[in-house]
């Protein structure tokens, strides 16, 4: 084994730093499609389970009840050389799964909010959530065939976005398009980082 000399994990081999990006938006807006388009692996699915830490006001008595509330999330990865690896998580659509959102958003570099002009209201909860939490985000309008074409300024107005929130058109099926959205997001997050704001 390559790591034969390591003992008790005290001297671990060099590992990349993991970075989390979120893809949010309403049900059926193309989150998993976008994850799949840019990921180097086929999108995987993981499940989070509602446990003690997330039980606040809900009265869930007994382990049986805890064990039955699971939320599935699709995710992909993009390796950036040897040093970094990006994980893209599609956020669960239902708002009752805020506890998973909180965990996903913790430490996330930023988020893409995917919007569909036919059902613009579906992305309101995501926009509200990231605004409230202070997570840098961009809005990407997924261009579905047959969807009405709006001027991006109109969409921005309808979403009541702050002037500095980037908004763009995209095609979630296309790798190149997804890539451009992610680049825009990372640039935006860079400008929003706390040190940048302080200067």
């Amino acid at each position, binding site marked *: 084994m390559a790591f034969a000399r390591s003992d008790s*994990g005290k001297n671990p081999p060099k*590992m990349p730093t*993991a970075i989390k990006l979120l893809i949010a938006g309403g049900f059926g807006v193309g989150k998993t499609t976008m994850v799949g388009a840019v990921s180097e692996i086929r999108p995987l699915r*993981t499940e989070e*389970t509602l446990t003690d830490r997330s039980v606040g006001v809900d009265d869930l008595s007994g382990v049986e009840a805890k064990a039955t509330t699971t939320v599935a999330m699709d995710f992909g990865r993009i390796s950036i050389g040897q040093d970094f690896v990006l*994980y893209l998580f599609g956020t669960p659509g239902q708002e009752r799964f805020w506890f998973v959102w909180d*965990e996903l958003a913790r430490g996330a570099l930023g988020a893409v909010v995917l919007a569909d002009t036919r059902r613009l209201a579906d992305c309101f909860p995501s926009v509200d959530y990231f605004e409230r939490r202070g997570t840098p985000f961009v809005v990407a309008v997924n261009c579905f065939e047959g969807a009405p074409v709006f001027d991006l300024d109109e969409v921005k107005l309808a979403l009541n976005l702050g002037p500095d929130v980037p908004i763009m058109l995209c095609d979630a099926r296309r790798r190149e398009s997804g890539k451009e959205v992610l680049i825009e997001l990372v640039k935006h997050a*860079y400008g929003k980082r706390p040190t940048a704001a302080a200067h």
Partner: protein
Amino acid sequence: MNTEWNPDEERLLDAPTIRPYVIARGRTEAQDRFDLISLAVTVRPTTGAEIGLDPEHQAIVRLCRRPLSVAEIAAHLDLPAGIVRVLLGDLFDRGFVAVQQPQPEMNVLDERMYKAVLDGLRAL
């Protein structure tokens, strides 16, 4: 124990749901220890008959010959992420795996990181 058989309780013992919690022996306290994107890598292979290691532990040790996130391990082994955290905690404590935590939020300021990520994305 002379608890009487209770049909309501019986109904809740749904095998596919309960089994992961048997693997973790009911423990959930390790859940906050690792993030979904904490990376694990095997630093000491198991010899095949390690005391106290379940097949699921062994599967993680085999899987993590290259660094994998908690989320990936969970997806590959078809286990809830919470259970993988518990099992990974066992393996970490016994020195089978090294775990790298993701960059904490306050440190996501590193200019070098943004530059590397942007360059990497552009080169995709």
